């Protein structure tokens, strides 16, 4: 499906304005590939027609669908594995020790996609830190996409998704069959509060986080947006809390107030002291 330069420019401007996702020249193929299914499901004839409808979209519903179609939701259970080893062996034990007197932990996954990352963390906690059952655990997971938030809440995964990165032991323990699919058990779903939150928009009032997962989302933003988000994460964190970024992400040249922890390939950061 052909895409003319004017429409590409218009669509990238709207997507960037709504979500901070940057679509540079050369990404025309991506816009075409992602929006062609939407053109069909909206009964439109072409991307040009879609762009035309977007210009008239007062309710913002169509634009929200376009933004959703343009986000990359790629994820898996225990993605990259190392961060979760660091969480299990070092970060969570340390946080538990430090918060022993309050018995309270605040956790936030800021780009939860279809839920594999927050559920990985929930399983890791249940498996390794049973004492947290008696703590006040405030576990929030958010994404810009309404569809992804719903997928998180349902916790239903296809065979293909369940096969990716999830230890079989945990599958039999924390999932139940739901027809041809697999659903996370209610006990785990109830651990997490799933919200819609646009990282490039207004952030609601949040408790000061002990642990922030912000993986594989900053890469889609331009430098000023990355800087603002990294700063806002700091402002919403406990001074001794931890942030995890994706394997291809860094705070380097973006925010000098973070320091990278010396854990192998984990993308783990904390706020510098002083």
């Amino acid at each position, binding site marked *: 499906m052909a895409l003319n330069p004017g429409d590409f420019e218009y669509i990238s401007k709207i997507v960037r304005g709504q979500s901070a996702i940057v679509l540079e020249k050369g990404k025309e193929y991506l816009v075409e590939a992602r929006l062609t299914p939407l053109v069909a499901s909206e009964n439109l004839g072409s991307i040009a027609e879609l762009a035309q409808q977007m210009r008239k979209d007062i309710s913002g519903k169509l634009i929200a669908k376009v933004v959703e179609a343009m986000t990359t939701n790629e994820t*898996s259970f*225990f993605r990259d*594995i190392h961060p979760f080893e660091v969480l299990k062996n070092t970060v969570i034990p340390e946080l538990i020790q430090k918060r022993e007197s309050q018995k309270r932990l605040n956790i936030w996954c800021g780009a939860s996609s279809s839920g594999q990352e927050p559920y990985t963390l929930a399983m890791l906690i249940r498996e390794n830190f049973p004492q947290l059952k008696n703590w006040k655990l405030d576990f929030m997971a958010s994404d810009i996409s309404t569809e992804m938030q719903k997928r998180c809440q349902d916790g239903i995964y296809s*065979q293909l998704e*369940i*096969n*990716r*990165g999830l*230890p*079989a*032991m945990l*599958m*039999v323990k924390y*999932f*139940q*069959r739901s027809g041809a699919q697999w659903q996370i058990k209610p006990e785990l779903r109830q651990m997490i509060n799933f919200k819609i939150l646009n990282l490039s928009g207004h952030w609601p009032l949040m408790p000061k986080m002990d642990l922030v997962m912000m993986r594989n989302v900053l890469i889609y933003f331009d430098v000023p947006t990355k800087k603002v988000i990294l700063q806002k994460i700091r402002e919403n964190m406990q001074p001794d809390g931890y942030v995890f970024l994706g394997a291809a992400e860094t705070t380097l040249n973006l925010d000098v107030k973070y320091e990278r922890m010396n854990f192998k390939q984990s993308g783990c950061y904390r706020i510098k002291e002083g």
Partner: protein
Amino acid sequence: MRALVIDDSRAIRLILGQVMKKLGFEVVDAGDGQQALDKLKSDGPFDIALVDWNMPVMNGYDFVVNARKDPQYNDMRLMMVTTETEMAQVVKALEAGANEYVMKPFTKEMIAEKLSLLGLSIE
């Protein structure tokens, strides 16, 4: 590292063998559970066996049970790679001593991720 690929389908042995080679393994294959037990003796040791469930002569489940009876194979990881997708089957395989479980159809990515869960990734 060395892998034993066990499947009665020649095509699957070929594809799975290629995946494992790409992931850095030396590969030996077998067409059923009995052949696989023989290869453990003649061609071992292996770091991992990838095991189909439904095969003639001896099925993959019985292979797992038999392999786990012999302490010299304690360190070998066993990963089922099968079309059996019932929860009860997965539980049964794990209880018999399988370490991981992949439901067919598989991709190279899937196999790689499961291997890294077993501490067998080559970096």
